[in-house]
């Protein structure tokens, strides 16, 4: 059980939740958040004490009602996070894929020679950038409607500029991840996958991705492992 220390709006239907307790974690790992009587869902940690969550249904709507001082119940962190590799990297984020990438750059910003964030959202008001600009060298925004940055998809940018990067970290909707994997030919890329997770600890098997379990073998996978799977 932890308390909510602070909560604020980050973008349209996206809120940040700062907890009274920090967790030892590797960027890319997730926690299970339980609201008694409501439900329990997995969320990637944006930082040791920070969750950044998009409102998508009844559970997140209840989360959004929480005030500072309210309690929430957390187990974890779980799963396999990102691995630090490469020198000049691109982060490719789509939709609400930003939290684990935010954690990554905040933890390892000095470990890379260059970090380019390529971030796509539906529209300007959905961009949940937080203060990520402080931790990267370059931010390239794309929006579906052109309301900010380039009109188009982040993967378009990646495809164009692929030669500039040694490696890519990606998190976002599955079609975007598939595009990233194909652009990179499944090499020099780590993606954080999403699946319907129930137990979070490798029991229920709900989150299978081929022979893998997203909760245990992932959520972060080396591209090579996903050949034939995604």
């Amino acid at each position: 059980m932890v308390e909510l220390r602070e909560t604020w709006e980050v973008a349209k239907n996206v809120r940040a939740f700062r907890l009274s307790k920090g967790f030892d974690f590797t960027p890319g790992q997730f926690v299970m958040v339980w609201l008694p009587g409501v439900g329990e869902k997995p969320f990637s940690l944006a930082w040791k004490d920070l969750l950044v969550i998009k409102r998508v249904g009844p559970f997140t709507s209840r989360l959004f009602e929480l005030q500072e001082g309210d309690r929430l119940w957390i187990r974890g962190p779980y799963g396999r996070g990102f691995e630090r590799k490469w020198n000049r990297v691109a982060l490719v984020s789509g939709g609400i894929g930003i939290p684990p990438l935010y954690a990554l750059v905040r933890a390892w910003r000095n470990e890379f020679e260059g970090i380019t964030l390529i971030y796509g959202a539906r529209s300007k008001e959905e961009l949940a950038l937080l203060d990520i600009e402080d931790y990267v060298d370059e931010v390239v925004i794309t929006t579906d409607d052109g309301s900010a940055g380039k009109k188009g998809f982040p993967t378009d940018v990646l495809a164009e500029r692929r030669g500039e990067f040694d490696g890519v970290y990606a998190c976002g909707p599955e079609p975007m991840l598939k595009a990233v994997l194909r652009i990179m030919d499944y090499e020099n890329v780590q993606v954080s996958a999403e699946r319907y997770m129930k137990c979070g600890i490798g029991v229920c098997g709900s989150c299978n991705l081929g022979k893998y379990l997203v909760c245990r073998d992932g959520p972060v996978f080396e591209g090579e492992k996903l050949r034939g799977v995604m």
Partner: protein
Amino acid sequence: MASLEVKLFGIRFENPLILASGINDKVPEQWIRAHEEGAGGVVTKSIGIEPRKGYDNPTIVELPCGLINAMGLPNPGWKGFLEMVEGYTFDFPLIVSIFGGTPEEFAFLAEKLSDVADAFELNLSCPHAKGYGMEIGQNPENVYEVVKAVKDATDRPVIAKLTPNIDDITKLGLAAEKAGADAVSAINTLKAIAIDIYARRPILSNRVGGYSGPGVKPVALRAVYDLAKVLDIPVIGIGGITTWQDAVEFLLAGASALQIGTAVSLRGWKVFREINEGIKAYLESEGFSSVSEIVGLALE
């Protein structure tokens, strides 16, 4: 070189370790993975008549000595199951777990799935699904009726998975044997609950669940020991087997094969290899040449 191979009801298993029902065994890729990781066989998630999505989260609680779960028998139903396995073949024994509310439902499932299953395990013991599992399997007459109905419906070997939530598990084992079961497996999980002291309510959405893992091992071992003493059919040991020493204890207590479940979550897929290697080293250092030589030695 000591051999790990075991033969049960006419089926050869490369080694005595079988993936228990309900642990990472939703889809064929996971069964194949379990075998790749060293399991000698696999039991599928329990399959019923209709698709079920299972209970809402929380469905699991982590404890110092194990887990409590109440998944609620999520499964695609027998039709969905058949679609899912279409085109797959398996080079290891695939045991299909089935659950039903009546002997007829069990028999129906066995008939429909006989082409896929190398054997059936009857879920007479899930402790948290209304009208299924333990609610049927705590009664020896029901165990008898279900096993008999399934035996009449299929030529495949039939394993009755028994509940420890009973005064004397041998009553259930004897009923299964009398009805023609080819083996029994024991134990399914123990009835249990966990309460959060700050939420002041049970953690699981189903409130109560089934307890598994190292904490139940002493109870499971006793169940196997008691069953092995009175039954002629083989007993498959399940319950908190986490180390190779645990595995050897179960074999000595009379288990002819073992199922591993919670340990896969607690220690990863590597448990199959580690436990197999430990059993083999034990057999060799103690002067045995096969697993079957030590089965039941502690029954004297």
